[in-house]
C-alpha cells in the first residue's frame, strides 16, 4: 500500500492518520446531507419563509408560539403517539411469540424460513397501494359494506372512513401488518445467537418455557429489543404515508389520523408554502424523539 508513502517529497501522510482518511467520506457526506439540513431546518423555523414569497425575515419564536396555540398540533402529537403505541405493542408481542415458537428446540417447527418470508411480504408492498386497497375496501360502495349487508350483519351500509375509531383502527392494523414481519426477522436473529447450551442446562435444572424465556431469552435479547424499540419509535414519530394516503391527506375524519409529519407537510404544501412554520413542526418532533430515545437508552442501560 501505497501511493502516499512512495512520495518521498512533499506532503507525507502518517500512517496514524489513515483512519481519518477512511472515515472522511462518511463525515463529509454526513455534514453535507445530514447535519446541514438539520441546521437549516432549525434556522428556517425562526423565519417566516414561504415558497411563494421567497426568503422571509427572522421572526423569533413566532412559529413555535403559533404552533402551540393551534389545537391541531396537540391533536397531531397525541394521534401520533396513540397510533404508534397501539401498533407497537401487538407488533412486538406477536413478533416475540412467533420468534419463540420458530426458534424453540422443543417445537421444531418446519419451514421456518418460508413463514418468516410470508410474514415479511406485506412490508414489500407500496404503502400507496395498500392505502388505496383499504380505501376502496371500506368505501361506501365497497366490498366490506356489500359483504356485511348481504350477509345480514348490518341493515344499512356505513360510511366507514367517516368514523374516527375505524380510521384509526385501520391505520394501526396496516402499520402492524406491514411491520411485524420485519420485527420477527430482527428478534429471531437475536434469539438464534443465544447459545443453545444455556437452554439445555436450564432444562436439566427443570426450568419451564416461561422461566427460560424470562430469565435467558429476554436478558440476552435486550440490545436487540432496545434497537427495535428505538427504531420503531423514530419511525412511528414520523408516520406519514399510510395515514396521509388512506383518506384526504388532511387527517380526515376530523383530524383523527393527522400525524406530526402530516401537519408538517400541510404547512409545507399550503397555498403559500409556509416552510418556516413547517420547519418548526420538524424541530419539535426532532427534539421530542431525541429526548425519548435517549431516555430509553438511559433506563434500559446495563446496570452494573
Amino acid at each position, binding site marked *: 500500500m501505497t501511493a502516499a508513502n512512495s512520495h518521498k517529497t512533499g506532503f507525507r501522510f502518517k500512517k496514524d492518520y489513515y483512519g481519518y482518511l477512511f472515515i472522511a467520506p462518511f463525515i463529509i457526506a454526513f455534514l453535507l446531507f445530514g447535519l446541514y439540513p438539520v441546521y437549516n431546518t432549525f434556522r428556517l423555523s425562526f423565519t417566516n419563509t414561504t415558497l411563494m414569497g421567497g426568503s422571509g425575515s427572522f421572526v423569533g419564536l413566532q412559529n413555535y408560539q403559533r404552533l402551540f396555540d393551534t389545537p391541531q398540533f396537540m391533536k397531531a402529537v397525541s394521534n401520533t403517539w396513540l397510533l404508534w403505541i397501539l401498533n407497537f405493542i401487538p407488533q412486538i408481542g406477536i413478533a416475540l411469540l412467533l420468534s419463540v415458537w420458530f426458534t424453540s428446540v422443543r417445537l421444531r417447527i418446519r419451514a421456518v424460513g418460508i413463514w418468516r418470508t410470508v410474514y415479511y411480504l406485506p412490508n414489500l408492498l407500496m404503502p400507496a397501494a395498500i392505502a388505496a386497497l383499504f380505501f376502496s375496501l371500506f368505501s361506501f360502495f*365497497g366490498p366490506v359494506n*356489500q359483504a356485511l349487508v348481504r350477509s345480514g350483519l348490518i341493515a344499512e*351500509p356505513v360510511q366507514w372512513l367517516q368514523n374516527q375509531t375505524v380510521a384509526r383502527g385501520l391505520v394501526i392494523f396496516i402499520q402492524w401488518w406491514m411491520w411485524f414481519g420485519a420485527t420477527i426477522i430482527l428478534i429471531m436473529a437475536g434469539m438464534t445467537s443465544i447459545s443453545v447450551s444455556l437452554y439445555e442446562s436450564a432444562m436439566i435444572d427443570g426450568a419451564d418455557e416461561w422461566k427460560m424465556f424470562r430469565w435467558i431469552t429476554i436478558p440476552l435479547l435486550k440490545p436487540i429489543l432496545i434497537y427495535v424499540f428505538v427504531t420503531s419509535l423514530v419511525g412511528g414519530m414520523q408516520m406519514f404515508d399510510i395515514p396521509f394516503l388512506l383518506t384526504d391527506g388532511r387527517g380526515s375524519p376530523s383530524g383523527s389520523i393527522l400525524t406530526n409529519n402530516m401537519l408538517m407537510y400541510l404547512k409545507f404544501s399550503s397555498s403559500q408554502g409556509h416552510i418556516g412554520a413547517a420547519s418548526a413542526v420538524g424541530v419539535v418532533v426532532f427534539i421530542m424523539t431525541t429526548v425519548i430515545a435517549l431516555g430509553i437508552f438511559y433506563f434500559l442501560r446495563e446496570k452494573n
Partner: protein
Amino acid sequence: MKNSFRLLALLMMVAMVLAACPSQSAEPTAVPAAADATAAPAAAEATAAPAAAEATAAPAVADATEAPASGEKETLNVWSFTNEINTMAVAYEGKHPNVDIKYTMIPMTNGEYQTKLKAALGTSDAPDVVALEAAFVKQFVESDFLKDLGSLLPYAQEDQTYTFVTDVGTNDGVTKAYAYQATPGALFYRRSLAKEYFGTDDPAEIQALLSDFDKYTEAAAVVKEKSGGDTYMVASSGDFQNPFFANREQPWVVDDTLVVDPMVQKYVDTAKLFRDEGYEAQAQQWQEGWFAGMNDSLVDAAGTPKKVFSYFLPTWGLPYVLAPNAKSADGSSDTSGDWGVITGPLPYQWGGTWLGVIDGTPKADLATDFVRFATLDQENLTNWATGVYTNDYLKAIDPNVASDQMQAPGDFVSSQVVVEKIIPDFDNSELSAFLAGQNSYAGFAEAAPSVNAKLMQGSDDAIQRAMNDPLNQYLNGEITEDQMWATWKENLAIDFPDLSTN
C-alpha cells in the same frame, strides 16, 4: 490483504458519495459519450450552431446522446397535471421539428402537483411552461414567478378570447396566463328518467322545472317518491358545491378576513337536506360509485340497482367525464343518447387549465410561443375542439406517443371567433347524438359570455379543501353544524395563519 480491503472500502465509499451527489451533471458524462459515439458530428454541430450558443449548448449535447440524428433540438420543459396538454405538445413538435418538448405529468389529487411545483420554483429543476388549474391558477398569477405575457394580448383580442379567461390570468393589469378552454357549467340529466318522473324530456321544460335550487330540491323529492327510492337526484352533494360557491356575493377573503357568504350556508343546508332525505347516492366525486351512476351500473350494498338522475358538469365534463363513462365496464349498460343538457339551477363555471411561463427561464421566447400556440392559435384551437388530433395524427409526428394519447372532439375553447366558426360542426356530431340531438356547443356558447371570475382568489382551493372533511363529518351526523364551522375555521389556521375568521 487487510490494507487492500480498506482501500476497496474507501473506493466504494467515495463512489457512493459521488453517486449520491444530486447534480449528476449531464455535461461531464455526456460529453465523452458523445465524442466516442457516432453522434460526434452532431454534437460538434450543436455547439457550433448559433441557436444553441448560450446556455442551451449543454442540453443540446446531452440530447445528442439520446437521438444522434437530431442533435440541434431545443428542449422545452412543460409540466401539467393531466396528459391533455401533451397532445398540444406533440402537435407543436409537428410544426416545429427542431423543438423537443419534455412533458411531465404530476397528479393533483391531494395537491401533489402544486406542492411539487412550488418546491421547484426558483431552482434549476423549474420547468419552462406550467399548466395551472382554476383552483390554484390565481396563487401563481398573484405571485412573481410567472412571466408577463402581455405581448400575447393582441392575439387574444383577435381571437375574442372570453374576457373572464383573460381576467383570471391577469393580476394588477399584468396578464401572465392564458387558457385554451372556457368552462361554463351545466346540468346533465337522464332523458328516459325525466320522461318517467316529469312526463317530458324537453330541455326547455326541464330547465323550467329545475330553474333554482328550491325547485331542484322539490324535484328531488318527486324523483325519490316516483322511483321508490331507487333513483337519486344526484350522485354526491359535492356535485352542486360549485354552483353555490360561484354565486356568492363576496370572495372568501376580504381585508384578511374570512367571509362566509349566505350562499355557503345555503349550500351546507341543501347538502344536509339531500343526505338526510336520501336524495343523493352518497358517492364520492371521482370515485367508483360516482362514475358507476353515469352508466347505470350503480348497485347498493344489498345488491339493488340504483340510478342517478342528474350530474353537474361543465363543458369539459361532457367529452372527458360523462361520454367516456356512459358505457359500463362489462358493456352491459350504455346510457349514450339518453342525456340532455340545461343551464340548471344556477349558472357557474368549473375548472379550466391556464398556461404560463416561469419568469427567468432561458427559453422564454420558445416558451411564450408554445403558450401562444396552445391557447391563442386559431388553427390549433379548431383542431383541438373538432377532433383533428387523433392518435394516428400524433403518432405520425412522434411514433413513441402512448396509444391512448388523443383529443376527442367537444372541448369548449376560449376563443369566441373559433367557437362561432365551429358550432355547426357539432350539429350532427357524436356528441350531439350522445345528447339525443342537442348541440351542447351552441348552449355553452350562449352561457360563456356571462361567466365572470371576479370572485376567484389564490386562496380558494385551500379554503374549500379544508371544508370537505368537517362538512362530510356533519353530513354523516358525526358532528354538529356548529362544530363543523368551528373545525373548518381551526383548520384554516394551518394554511392562513394571518387570516381572521371571526
